[in-house]
């Protein structure tokens, strides 16, 4: 199998495709930093949503700014092993220091992808 095939089968690629073509995000890229975690290499994605998200930061003109995404597998029988220790490592090693949240992107094996905000610490719910 070629590298390209592998790349296209990765969940990072699936999330990227979903964001670019389904959610209309811009500047979506797979981050270079990576974290060796159990049997997998964790890579985050970053991108800019079309409109500012709930509780999200904006630039001085009110435009949405970059969000980080953590792609994970939700297979029917075996999911990724993401513990709280793992989240701590991701915030510590893969995000900029002032990052308050990442977006957990759960890739289901039926092709759907769902997104959840994961805030570090105790956080108020959105309005």
């Amino acid at each position: 199998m070629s590298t390209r095939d592998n790349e296209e089968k990765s969940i990072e690629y699936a999330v990227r495709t979903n964001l670019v073509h389904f959610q209309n995000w811009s500047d979506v890229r797979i981050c270079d930093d990576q974290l060796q975690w159990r049997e997998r290499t964790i890579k985050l994605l970053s991108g800019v949503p079309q409109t500012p998200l709930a509780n999200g930061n904006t630039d001085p003109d009110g435009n949405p700014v970059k969000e980080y995404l953590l792609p994970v597998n939700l297979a029917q029988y075996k999911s990724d092993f993401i513990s709280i220790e793992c989240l701590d490592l991701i915030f510590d090693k893969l995000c900029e220091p002032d990052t308050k949240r990442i977006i957990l992107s759960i890739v289901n094996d039926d092709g759907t992808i769902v997104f959840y905000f994961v805030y570090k610490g105790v956080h108020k719910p959105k309005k």
Partner: protein
Amino acid sequence: MTVTINLIGGSECYNSLLTPLVFNIDDIKKLRELGICGILSGTLPTASQQNIFLTVPLKLMVEEAIWLHIKGLAKFKVLRCNLLDSINEILEKDGEQIEKTAKLRLKKSFDLQREYKKEQHLLKLERLGITDSERIEKNVNGNDKLLEAALFIETPTTSNLLNNIHLSSVGWGISDKLLKILISQYGNWDNYLLFQALRDKGYVLAPGGRFGGKFIAYPGDPLRYHSHMIIRDALHYREQPIDFLELAANARLGTGVKKIWVIGSSTETDKGPTNNDKAIVDDNISFYSIEWAGFG
């Protein structure tokens, strides 16, 4: 300031945890100011099924009881396992005395009321301009029957009997021992650490069963605020992965009820309460708050 927490039940009775109860209204007020709300659990003997108008005792969560004790705000007392037996025992021993005291108290209350009412009556006659002493005499003392019918019987808010149980029960000295028993019966110490961390941040916590969590957290008094968070049972920091199906269910439910789902664990693993005699205080808790992103 210390409040008295009564521990009742335990393995002999219900094969369950000791239940912390508070009977004193002033204590309950103090606890409320401290952000410990508990749940009123007393109901009316004639309508024991209703659960809208509830009164003392205030039932505390085990975490609340432990927290209060560790902060030095409460002492534990044990109510003997079988309350009925205790009450019967007291009635047998001190029944007469208790009855006498109660009667005496009632008589004193009546005397005071009579005195007050007569005084008021005289003032009224004076206002009406009746000064004839014979008429006054007749008017005041001729109304005894009416006056007797107007006397109030005060129902005390705390129980004399329970006070007597305390007297005949074990003293203060074993409070620390009771704490240890309570802790040893307590399943997951990390849950307590979660409770403590949130309480120390100023949140008021209540049982979270209604929303499928361990606790729910209010940013202030529950009568003034809606709760903001549903807190899950403590996870193990290293060994326990987040269940994504559970996450989806809770984050979606949370969004539906305007709450955020909070997970947390103690970063210092394998450090139970037994490793330290002075019931550890540990604030190395890692929290994450999760909600639906609004798309996908």
